[in-house]
């Protein structure tokens, strides 16, 4: 693991499996009557959101609070940023207040990378979505969800997604979720196919470790998971596709298409869904759709990432071992992860 989490492409297979396994441990905490660990007690995490994203922000906030971190929420709207303050000054101001980690959502691709590499601040940086670049915790929670459903909750521990066929459908061009997922799913051994109208596939996609298809129907029967991306209606006005109806007909997932997927195959969506556009209500509300699980899994994944990057003052759960070093806790799944229930 590195000091920051900027891009899913920075994770090795072992890093990614470690995060997924750690997230399974974290998920057990959610099943307890008191959903809280003392791990990040006394440490301060700021959620620095330059873009509105209530769901991602509250997911991080829930993860931080379950790890007992002190949480500061900073929204750019109505703040000094809207009065012209630079990213650098905002970040330095926050760090001067003693922040240990910055969770950043920014509309500009590369803003988290700049924050982590320009010498502006020392805090750990976690990318919560930057422009059309990356959204690594989304990819991790998607991989976590797929592994649970396709490999198994316990059987999945230590495992990757080798040989699983995952199809990602929609606005790839403008999607940081697609980019992150292509990187991470490939690292985890999955075979990824992107499906979109040619206008919504970036020039240069040929070097990505995935296949590209313009035909949804031909990919359904050979998909273990189909991930639908949100398609913004405004794209229609920039001539990416003629009408909403035509988009839905060609690339939307409805009951008929879902029926052509293998029986075990799941439907994923990073949310928020545009029902009637890329997904019908029938599919969204079916048992095969994991959208709500993905939200729950997001909290576990973000707990795991925060834990592994910040290496808490204390082990994740009780029974601290005096010999356990910060480094070993940060880099390896030591017994300190085990919950008391298991012991």
């Amino acid at each position, binding site marked *: 693991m590195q000091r920051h989490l900027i891009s899913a492409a920075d994770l090795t297979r072992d890093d990614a499996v470690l995060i997924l396994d750690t997230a399974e441990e974290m998920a057990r905490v959610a099943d307890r009557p008191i959903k809280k660990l003392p791990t990040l007690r006394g440490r301060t995490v700021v959620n620095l959101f330059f873009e509105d994203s209530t769901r991602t922000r509250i997911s991080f906030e829930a993860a931080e609070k379950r790890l007992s971190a002190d949480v500061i929420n900073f929204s750019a709207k109505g703040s000094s940023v809207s009065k012209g303050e630079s990213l650098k000054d905002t970040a330095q101001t926050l760090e001067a207040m003693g922040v240990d980690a910055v969770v950043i959502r920014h509309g500009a691709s590369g803003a988290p990378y*700049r924050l982590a590499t320009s010498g502006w601040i020392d805090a750990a940086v976690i990318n919560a979505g930057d422009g059309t670049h990356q959204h690594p915790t989304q990819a991790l929670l998607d991989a976590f969800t797929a592994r649970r459903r396709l490999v198994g909750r316990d059987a999945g521990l230590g495992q990757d997604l080798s040989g699983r066929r995952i199809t990602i459908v929609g606005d790839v061009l403008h999607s940081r979720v697609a980019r992150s997922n292509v990187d991470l799913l490939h690292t985890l051994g999955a075979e990824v196919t992107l499906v979109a109208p040619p206008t919504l596939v970036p020039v240069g996609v040929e070097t990505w470790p995935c296949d590209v298809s313009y035909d949804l129907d031909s990919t359904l029967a050979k998909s273990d998971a189909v991930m639908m991306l949100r398609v913004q209606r405004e794209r229609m006005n920039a001539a990416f596709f003629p009408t909403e109806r035509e988009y839905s007909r060609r690339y939307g997932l409805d009951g008929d298409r879902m029926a052509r997927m293998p029986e075990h195959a799941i439907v994923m969506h990073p949310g928020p869904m545009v029902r009637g556009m890329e997904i019908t209500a029938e599919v969204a509300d079916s048992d095969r759709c994991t959208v709500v699980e993905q939200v729950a899994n997001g909290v576990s994944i973000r707990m795991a990432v925060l834990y592994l990057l910040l290496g808490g003052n204390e082990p994740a759960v009780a029974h601290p071992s005096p010999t356990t070093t910060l480094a070993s806790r940060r880099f390896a799944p030591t017994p300190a992860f085990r919950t008391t229930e298991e012991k």
Partner: protein
Amino acid sequence: MSKILIRGAKVLGGEPQDVLIDGAVIEAVGSGLSDEGAEVVEAGGKVLLPGLVDLHTHLREPGREDSETVLTGTRAAASGGYTAVFAMANTFPVADTAGVVEQVWRLGREHGYCDVQPIGAVTVGLEGKKLAELGAMHESAAGVTVFSDDGKCVDDAVIMRRALEYVKAFGGVVAQHAQEPRLTEGAQMNEGIVSAELGLGGWPAVAEESIIARDVLLAEHVGSRVHICHLSTAGSVEIVRWAKSRGIDVTAEVTPHHLLLTDELVRTYNPVYKVNPPLRTERDVLALREALADGTIDIVATDHAPHPHEDKDCEWAAAAMGMVGLETALSVVQETMVDTGLLDWAGVADRMSFKPAKIGQARDHGRPVSAGEPANLTLVDTAYRGSVDPAGFASRSRNTPYEGRELPGRVTHTWLRGKATLVDGKLT
């Protein structure tokens, strides 16, 4: 003015010779010239070139004196071996009237580091709607002959056609910033493999090439001359090559940074690499070098674009586009063209002095190094190699993509009409 004897200089890279300057003029070029009554500069095998001429400089004055002024910009020019620069029109106010171009021209004369020849805007306010008073700018003291909306493309085909036609009356030339605006909305970098990964808005090569194709055809149709600014793609090279083969009167420039850097550098998200047109691919870089060598691209022009630190010390999307270039141009050309064997020093003199002076009609510049010619000269220590240190720049801005990069060559002396503006690497 006293005499200066430059002893043992490789004139245009040839055999060492002596060059005697008397006042503003070269008195003699030969071997064993007498140093009687002359200040002697021992060239010791350095290369002597005609003073360099930059057809594409942003001096920022009036309006953005926080990034550059005519004084700091011309000092940077002298430092880089230039004796004449063409100042782009995108100032505040825009250089679209005789008053503004005369002000810029006069400031250059007063400071005396480098001749400043203003470029006039093609359209009022660079807005692409209405022709500026091109004739008035030409008839002003500044004597404008080059017109450009640089920074913006003259994208309306009718306005471009009219401008090309109109300036024929006084032998002017329109320099086009070729960028189809609709294809580059939200563009942040070259569109290709790297932009796809980084999620930055793409600036496709076709947005440049389609405008160049249109403009060479327009120039042919109306029988005008057209100049293409900062050509950046392999496809643009092919179009210009085709146009020249048809006899179309087109000239083209390439910047030093497009001869050396590629879009792979954008992976750092460091806005020092953000420039317009954007850094392209290695294939483009190699095509541009070849085209400069074979004459398809006529000249090197810096597109020196100073920006204050805060405009680059930020996230990529928020950063300004542009790089300073006057003080590193010759080194980059040596690195990419001379040391690679693509061009000799006579070729460098042609691409960086003779031809740009000819395109811009700077009559006292870009002249041969021979008796009776104006003493606009620059002396280059081509054996030098060192890393670029922006702290030593004369420019007010530091936005160079070469910080810490090792480059060959160093300008040690520059003379403007016989007056030294740079001596032993120090501005006078």
